[in-house]
């Protein structure tokens, strides 16, 4: 589903001493099927932004369009339930939302709410638990008996079982060990391609953004700071540092190399192997001159 933001602003507790502008005049367009990374330091408005995607909050100004649903400031949103079925949100620390007596019921909770038939719920539950790479034996266990990593996977499976068209991920790997982080991100990437999802990933990890996203939006103090393809955005090391963000290691390395050797190796999204070859050519070329 296409996602469009038109001059969206959001103000917490307007007209009170505690008024706070979380978003200011945000506009962008995400075509269906893209993998978008939303980046910004803490308090830049990322979480507020993604809550607009399934109507948890309504814009104070402007309009949000998700597929055929439109949310305009001051207007009531119709078919909120339908929107929430199509937009699955994996919140930060999603394991905090587990509550059912066994894993199977918890995964099936979303689809049940949206009126999916029992047979279909069964099928989706199994599909979801396979997608998150957990053994089916866990289905009968209490979600509170699992390890932290397993709980996270169950919670994610609960969102996948809704079989959404848009998947919104709010730092889905926070607090996991490095291997768990890699596995979870690979899984989302695979699902994104297999099911032709539109994925919105909120992250602090520039490496993840560079590796998976095909579009990057950078927020700073509630405003859109930069937008574009990762390889275009991440080369602006100076600007990114100004808003307290890092650039991916590859680009840091290339920038340092340019400073030291005075040789510019442009980054255009090449793999590590490709890059190594290009570098070898450059370095050898230098030696050849001497």
């Amino acid at each position, binding site marked *: 589903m296409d996602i469009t933001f038109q001059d969206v602003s959001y103000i917490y*507790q307007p007209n*009170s001493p*505690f008024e706070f502008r979380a978003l200011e005049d945000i506009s962008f367009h995400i075509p269906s099927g893209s993998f978008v990374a939303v980046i910004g330091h803490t308090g830049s408005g990322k979480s507020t932004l993604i*809550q607009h995607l*399934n109507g*948890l909050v309504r814009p104070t100004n402007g309009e949000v369009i998700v597929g055929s649903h439109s949310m305009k400031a001051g207007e009531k949103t119709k078919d909120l*339930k339908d929107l*929430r*079925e199509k*937009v*699955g*949100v994996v*919140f930060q620390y*999603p394991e*905090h*939302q*587990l*509550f059912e007596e066994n894993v199977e019921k918890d995964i099936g*909770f*979303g689809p*049940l*709410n*949206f009126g999916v038939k029992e047979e279909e719920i069964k099928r989706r539950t199994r599909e979801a638990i396979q997608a998150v790479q957990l053994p089916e034996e866990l289905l009968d266990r209490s979600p*509170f008996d699992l390890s932290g990593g397993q709980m996270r996977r169950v919670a994610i499976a*609960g*969102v996948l079982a*809704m079989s959404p068209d848009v998947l919104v991920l709010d730092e889905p790997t926070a607090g996991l060990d490095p291997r768990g982080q890699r596995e979870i991100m690979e899984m989302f990437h695979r699902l994104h391609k297999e099911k032709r999802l539109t994925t919105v990933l909120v992250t602090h990890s520039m490496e993840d953004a560079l590796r998976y996203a095909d579009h990057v939006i950078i927020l700073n103090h509630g405003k859109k700071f930069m937008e574009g393809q990762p390889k275009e955005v991440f080369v602006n090391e100076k600007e990114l540092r100004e808003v307290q963000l890092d650039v991916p290691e590859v680009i840091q390395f290339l920038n340092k190399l340019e400073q030291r050797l005075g040789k510019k190796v442009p980054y255009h999204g090449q793999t590590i192997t490709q890059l190594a070859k290009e570098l070898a050519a450059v370095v050898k070329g230098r030696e050849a001159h001497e």
Partner: protein
Amino acid sequence: MSSNMIIGQYVPGNSVIHHLDPRTKITIIFFFVLIVFFANSVMSYGLLTVFSLGSALSTRIPVKYLVKGLTPVWFLILFTFILHLFVTKEGTVLFSILTLDVYSGGLIQGLSLSLRFFLLILVTSLLTLTTTPIAITDAIEDMLGPLKKFRFPVHELALMMSISLRFIPTLMQETEKISKAQASRGVDFKTGPIKDRVKAIVPLLVPLFVSAFKRAEELAMAMEARGYQGGEGRSKLRKLQISRLDIYSFIVFGLVIFGLFLTRS
């Protein structure tokens, strides 16, 4: 939940009342609540009103904020007034609305009771408006101190109070977070038949309890790791101290009590 409800909310400030020792405030308010019931003449009510409004103004909390914050209370006060106006049948008939006679006694009764009510609410809410919950807890612990002689666990009680106060905002945040997560999974908290809405609380309450217990366990562990072992011999970061300001306020309040008994009829 209405965000402009001020009962129980602390508004930071730098006024005399903010600087008073919390024990002074609690004592004065305690006796104020008692003496409000002794007022019975126009003069005595006037005196108490001047005292309460004066205190409220001296906190420099915006009047608009106070008036708006007491919205639910205004309704109760009005209700008290109207009830007494029509129900009390003493004195002479002043006028009648439809078939209901309004007596002079009813008018007086209604006015004095709603005024009492207003003064009580105003003065008691000044305590929480100008004192942090922690300071109130410290004061209570100190004032209940003598009960320690009877093996009453004063310190533990105060600790429990301050811990629960500390975790109210945390739990509120947690509630909002979980309700948003469940709403995203299709739970509808706001519409639909009552039966469904009550059922919708389960997916909210279970995770909330789980996290509250987990937090309690972690807190207990952290306290133990830092060698916490109860109130015996424990020094305080914020020491309560009676200053000149407190003595002055006791004098002022004493004069008010004195004046009250002079002006009573």
